[in-house]
């Protein structure tokens, strides 16, 4: 590879990644030399905004692949990067440096860790090669481990981070183990080549291929926290500070989903060389079962939670279960469905976490009772929280409902139609009503414990307001994002 080839690549397509990278470097230097936390915060926000600006110039750009397919740009990457960037931006906005005591002690490193994690996520989204994919994934993971443990004087944070890194490392070992078999069978790490080789595989090696697929898949489910790799989620969320938990539940999960979707769709749904169809077709039952188990476990265990972060952790497990359905029932709009759902999930979940953050900061407590009497203390915030919860529960008029509707549509229009999965999904959704409505009851019907006024930093209003607006807007006019997606 000489310089000429290297320069012939269309590097401009990587502008968002470079922006994030450079911002990360600047922020870390700034932190090192000046240690101005406020500046770090603004710089990060600026950097992400800039990246979004770069990305938006790529709207309707044709598909490009550079570095021999290790970096690809297509519409899918474009749309998922939007989610990652916007999600990170919202999380940055939801933390207010001047106010957030916890981040005071750890100074500015939160910001560049966040940016590094974001970068990892973006690389995961864009990579067409298993190696870069793995590297991106680990960048995301390792940054997340540190972010969880960033409150180093907090025992819960230590414990959460420890658990996170141990399960995470286990998971990545498992993933790698599976990937090594896939590499062995195909002799390549490029996803498109894997796909090609898989279709020409020797029948005798068929079980090995499937084994490789299963092990890889289960390892990857760690990121999206589905059964059986879900158990770290509540502990880690509880240990992490609220913005970090929000990041894990939205950005990190979105990256995980696109990773799985990409691998499934590109590498494993190729035309069959196997006797009975593609690897995907063998594995689809597995995905369906995992989806069902995840929905059931997430929603039922959430019923028992009083700690709000744990509750949202289980809720996020449940949502991961819903999101597996489009993968278990692949149709031509599965990706669109996943994307829309992640978009909606980003809006409603970050919104909810932002409100939660405000309350946790005000009460220094994470019990459900922090919501009590919120209606009397801040009606506007309550209404917004109601919208988020309604959206999470899938009540019409919110983006969450449209997301669920899309999933249904996919599940039932797939061949064969997945009535059982759809049934489990609606049934567990109804179960989820109970814990979401528990929060509503706290807000509207319980007397407030503390009548002191809520302190809500102005910048948090931006996040909450944006999320509310998005949740309602996409709930009522789903054609906006849907048309946007089908450019």
């Amino acid at each position, binding site marked *: 590879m000489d310089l000429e080839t290297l320069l012939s690549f269309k590097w401009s397509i990587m502008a968002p990644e470079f922006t994030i990278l450079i911002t990360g470097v600047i922020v870390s230097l700034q932190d090192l030399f000046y240690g101005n936390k406020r500046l770090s915060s603004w710089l990060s926000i600026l950097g992400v905004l800039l990246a979004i600006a770069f990305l938006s110039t790529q709207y309707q750009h044709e598909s490009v692949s550079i570095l021999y397919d290790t970096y690809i740009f297509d519409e899918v990457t474009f749309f998922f990067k939007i989610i990652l960037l916007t999600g990170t931006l919202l999380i940055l906005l939801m933390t207010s440096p001047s106010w957030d005591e916890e981040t005071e002690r750890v100074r500015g490193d939160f910001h560049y860790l966040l940016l590094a994690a974001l970068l990892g996520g973006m690389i995961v989204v864009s990579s067409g090669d298993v190696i870069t994919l793995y590297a991106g994934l680990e960048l995301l993971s390792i940054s997340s481990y540190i972010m969880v443990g960033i409150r180093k004087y907090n025992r819960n944070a230590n414990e959460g981070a420890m658990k996170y890194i141990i*399960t995470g490392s286990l998971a990545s070992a498992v993933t790698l183990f599976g990937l090594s078999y896939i590499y062995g069978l195909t002799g390549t790490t490029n996803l498109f080549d894997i796909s090609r080789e898989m279709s020409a595989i020797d029948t005798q090696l*068929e079980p090995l291929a*499937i084994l490789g697929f299963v092990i890889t898949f*289960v390892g990857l489910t760690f990121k999206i926290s589905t059964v059986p*790799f879900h158990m770290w989620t509540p*502990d880690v969320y509880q240990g992490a500070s609220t913005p970090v938990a929000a990041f894990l539940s939205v950005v990190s999960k979105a990256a995980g989903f696109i990773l799985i979707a990409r691998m499934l769709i590109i590498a494993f749904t190729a035309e069959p060389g196997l006797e009975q169809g593609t690897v995907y077709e063998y594995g689809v039952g597995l995905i369906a079962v995992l989806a069902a188990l995840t929905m059931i476990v997430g929603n039922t*265990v959430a019923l028992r939670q009083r700690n709000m972060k744990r509750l949202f952790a289980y809720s996020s497990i449940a949502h991961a279960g819903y999101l597996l359905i489009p993968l278990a029932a692949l149709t031509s709009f599965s990706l669109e469905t996943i994307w829309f759902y992640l978009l909606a999930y980003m809006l409603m979940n970050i919104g909810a976490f932002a409100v939660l953050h405000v309350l946790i900061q005000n009460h220094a407590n994470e019990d459900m009772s922090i919501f009590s009497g919120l209606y009397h203390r801040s009606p506007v915030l309550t209404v917004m929280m109601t919208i988020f919860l309604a959206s999470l529960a899938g009540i019409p008029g919110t983006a969450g409902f449209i997301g669920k509707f899309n999933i249904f549509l996919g599940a039932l229009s797939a061949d064969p139609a997945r009535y059982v999965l759809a049934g489990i999904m609606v049934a567990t959704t109804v179960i989820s009503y109970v814990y979401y409505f528990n929060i509503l009851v706290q807000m509207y019907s319980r007397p407030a414990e503390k009548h002191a006024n809520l302190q809500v930093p102005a910048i948090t209003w931006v996040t909450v307001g944006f999320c509310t607006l998005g949740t309602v807007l996409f709930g009522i006019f789903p054609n906006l994002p849907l048309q946007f997606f089908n450019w």
Partner: protein
Amino acid sequence: MISFAWLIPLFPLLSFLVLILSGKKLKTVSGYLASLLTGISFIFTLGVIADLRSVTEYEATWTWLTIGTTDIQAGVWLNPLNGLMLFIVSFVSLLVHIYSLGYMGENDRRATYFAYLGLFTFAMLGLVMSPNLIQFYMFWELVGLGSFLLIGFYLYKESAKRAARKAFIMTRIGDAGLLVGLILIFWQTGSLSFTEIFQAVEQNEFAPGMVTLTAILLFIGAVGKSGQFPLHTWLPDAMEGPTPVSALIHAATMVAAGVYLVAAAYPLFLASEWALMIVAVIGAFTAIFAATIGLVQDDLKRVLAYSTVSQLGYMMLALGAGGYVAGMFHLTTHAFFKALLFLAAGSVILALRKQNIKEIAGEGRHLAITKWGFLAGTLAISGFPLLSGSFSKEAIFAALLEDGQYGLLGVALLTAFLTSVYMFRLYFMVFHGKGADKPPKSVPVSMKIPVIILAALAVISGFFATGFADWLAAEQEYAVLHHSPTWLIFLATLLSLGGIVFAYFIYVRKQMDREEWKTTFSSTYTILYHKYFIDEFYQNTIIYSTRAISYLMYYTERYVVETIAAFAAGMVKEIGKTGSRLQNGRVQTYGTVALLGLAVIVLIFVVRGGYF
């Protein structure tokens, strides 16, 4: 005049509306207002009847309800039969209104009372003018409502409450039959109009067996309203209402509506021998059954009530035996003399403040007009020669003879004997005896006039039998008045007089000790006194089994439905609990669960040969 016939029921309705909406404001004038409006109604009725002599049939309808392509009409239908009923109803109602002016006296709720009377009169008038079965049914139920409200008028009395409820429910059982009947008729003929139904009957449009079935179902309705066995038990209890009400509703008009129903739908019944047979048998049985109970009852109004049941049985018997004119004629005469008896009884009760005949023990003898009025009624109902009852009863016997129903004729004759026995028992015990000598307080004039008018009618109306038959025959060819052979007249007269004499010897001359009778026939007496234990029978069978079903469902709800729901909820909770227990806080458990999960999945792949 006849084109204004639709106004007739509206005056009483107006009375109802004005009085119910004004509350207590019109209390003092309420009776006069109601009487006035009923009077106007009566005058209109007379006008209509005058017209009917030339027109014979008149129908005016408009669309009430559209069901698909079928229009269901509402309107007025007038023919000789309707005209007759119209006359009876508006006439008796007017008299009862006038009587009530005195009877209700200073009652605080008399505005409500007259309102209810208005409602009832409206419904009854609407009923008899109905051109089709559905309108008939509607007014039929409204009549029941009026009856219900008036029975329960003394609403603070527990017994009134129970009686009202019983009346409504028992008649509703019959009504349900009627409803089914009319629905079936609708699907047979595509119409509910009387005339169209009759045409369909004539042209044999009914499916086989349907004529009988529908006729019987209609008859079930009649059984409920007219207090025929086995739905008769409400009628004696209905005597909890004010006495004028008993006269109007539970003697002269509403209870006769069942008979009127059979008469109005007579072509349908004629088309089915079985239906006629059942009508006749039920009628005959009820007649003698109620008469035997009447023999031993001690409550003045209850005896009259059982007598009403018995007489209604007569009417049914007549209709069932083809004695259309006889039945209707008896209905007419009965309306007069039974209303008379009740009104007279009302005077007694108002004056003496008691209605147990043993307690009255002849105290009624001081009330001259009442006494003579009551006597006229008693003689009429007993079939004393040349009084109205004798003519109508004789017509019934003749119809039975003509029809060849000798068994039923025997029953009818026996009933005639029993009738005179228990009626004169009543008369003698109320108006002859050595009760307290202090003269009771006199009754107001308004209560005397109706008694006098009705007494006159009870005496003379029998002579109009032939004219009556001609009147009805103008429209229906089956309206034939049968004439009895002399021996039958003689026999009937003998039985009637025999009953009177029998009663005289027991209750006036005390030739036979009543207590002795009781002991000799103690079991019979007990059975009769307890009305054949029918109420108890219903209580122990139908009511208890209904409650049993209710409780069965209650426990089903509680233990089956709720348990299933609780089980589902419990299962969800249990899964949650298990999941949460697994989450024990140790990261190695998490890893184990994950890896075990993976192992299980791999195992499944291996076992199933790579097929999931």
